[in-house]
């Protein structure tokens, strides 16, 4: 199709902008970020426990489907800053099981997810117990009435604290995981493939946008 000057300019600008947007998206998609290997699925709805230096709270057993290098807990210090210490133990060896990894992080006085990086990566499939204690200031853990079957929080029979186990991976590298998760609880005809097709179709919309602008500008010149 031969395009007139304005239409060509429009198409060219849209094409350059599309390339820039796609390149930026790909670069940011290659950056590493937390990906959940396990979520206890206890909403961080209300305070369930206060942890102190000598009063840790543990929860388990839980089993992550992927490796774990970060532990996510939800809550906030009672005041100021607080230093969270997380210990991941092998739950298969009793309450005081072998320590698999530890980590610590400083948290601010905002109710949010606090990710604590572990000193070692815990392989997938381990039965784990996660213990949290806080120094500097007490830390209020958020959670909800117990809903995860077979999981127990120490000191509280009827409540559980929200717990997430993560590993680091890039967004683009995790797409197959995301799509296989998104395909669950869907109509029978939806599978992981559906989301790959949609991703390809979405990428094609940038091409369609260039066509649309070129055609619109060309029609206006007639």
């Amino acid at each position: 199709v031969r395009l007139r000057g304005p239409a060509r300019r429009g198409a060219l600008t849209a094409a350059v902008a599309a390339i820039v947007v796609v390149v930026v998206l790909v670069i940011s998609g290659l950056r590493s970020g937390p990906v959940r290997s396990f979520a206890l699925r206890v909403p961080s709805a209300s305070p369930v426990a206060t942890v102190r230096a000598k009063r840790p709270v543990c929860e388990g057993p839980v089993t992550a489907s992927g490796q774990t290098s970060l532990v996510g807990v939800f809550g906030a210090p009672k005041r100021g800053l607080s230093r969270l210490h997380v210990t991941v133990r092998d739950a298969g060896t009793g309450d005081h099981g072998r320590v698999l990894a530890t980590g610590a992080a400083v948290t601010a006085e905002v109710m949010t997810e606090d990710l604590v990086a572990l000193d070692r990566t815990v392989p997938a499939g381990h039965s784990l117990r996660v213990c949290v204690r806080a120094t500097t200031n007490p830390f209020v853990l958020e959670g909800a009435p117990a809903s995860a079957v077979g999981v127990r929080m120490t000191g509280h029979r009827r409540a559980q604290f929200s717990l997430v186990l993560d590993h680091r991976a890039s967004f683009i590298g995790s797409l197959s995981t995301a799509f296989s998760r998104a395909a669950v609880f869907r109509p029978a005809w939806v599978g992981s493939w559906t989301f790959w097709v949609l991703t390809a179709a979405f990428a094609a919309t940038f091409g369609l946008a260039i066509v649309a602008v070129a055609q619109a500008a060309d029609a206006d010149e007639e």
Partner: protein
Amino acid sequence: MQDAGHSVSPPSARRLPRPPRALVALLGIVLCVGLCWALTVPPWQAPDEIAHYGYVESLATGFRLPGHADRSGESTDQARADLATGAQRGAFFPASSPPSWSRAEFRSYLRANTRSEAHRSDGGGPSTAAGNPPLYYLIAGAGYLIDGGGTAFGRLYAIRLEGVVLLLLTALGAWLLAGETFGRRRLPQLVTAATAALLPMSSFISTDVNPDALMITEWTFGLWLGSRVINRAARTADVAALCAITAAAILTKSSSYAFVPGLLLAVILGLVRRPAGQRLPRIPALTGCGALLAGPVIAWLAVSRSIGGTAISQVYTAGRPFNTRQFLSYLWQFYLPRLPFMIRFRLTPQLPLNQIWIDQGAGSFGWLDVSLPTWAYNVAKVALGVLTVSSVWFLARLRGLRRLGLLGFYLLSLFALLAVLHVTEYRQTLGGGSTFLQGRYLLPTVSLLGLAVALLVSRLPRPTRAPAGGLVMVGLLGAQAISLVAIVQAYYL
């Protein structure tokens, strides 16, 4: 046998007008984006989607309006599906309690799924959606019944796919609206339609189970028809269509009563544009058109009252009277910083204009719990600022009855909607309720935002218009990409 080379009538006489290629390309984009939203958002992870689905199910299985005190809000079938995926439990908490992605749990749900009609028809109890009129839910029932014998998830996603059709119609309506406003200029039409349909919140809400999806489409077509009424001097067919679409909007959501003042203004302006001698004879025909508006609305009010419904959503005010001075103070503090002598009337930590209209309008997904990166909101604010200043600049220079009439109609429609929403929120706070307004409530007027973008593009120097249109299109797709990434990260990673 007829020779293939000899047709009965000339081909040109039978050929339908070809749609503009730019529109076809845009609809292709909107279809793809709509499918992405409809299928990617997890089950019931949209505002009040649990209640809206329950309403659809109640109508589809027993032709019964919800709200019966002796029934459950969710049917047994929906409650099982909800429990299996953890939809209600995780609402507002996607970080700590994302919807289940366990295949074992899904298989367990499928084994237990009885496909029993009785388990689907035992809902219809009190819910947040019960006060809504039924039109959207009746239309959504078609999607529900497509997969009537399958799982709750099949039915939910069938309704969502119906929303993709609504999104396509919104794009078409906005295209037509821009055609009436700017004339048949394809670039402004493309920009208007793209903004209306590809703004991430518009795509998200249109493809969820939510009456707002239909309301956006109806208002877009209403604005187009109102423009036709003004431009074409109140032709009977246009006025009739405008009345019908307004009635449909009111039967979709009560806040659509706000469209009535705009309708009246459009008809008056249309009449004024006729020669003086033709005005009075037109009035009986136009009054007849009014029956298309009043008839369905009155019928609904009567039916609703006869079965004990409220017809118009009731707002609990705890018996406190409407205080005009307090309302004006509330309104001031919504849009502007509080003055020293004013009593604090703040419903959000930040300025509500910023937090509700701008941030939530730019992107607040799920149960308002999935946000965009902070920089994206800053970009949205800058873009909106540029758009507002340029629109005021260009609109202040508008001349001519037709153009000013169109502007008046658009502004009246927008401000009437704002007035209804603010009065509702103020009255709700009188009753001790929390924030009522959400950014999505302005989406029925999203095509006016599209017109503002198109106005800016069309007033640029001629050589830069097409490049500017290209930047708008790619910018919208970039916003879509960022929003869909936010959804995937929040729920699946």
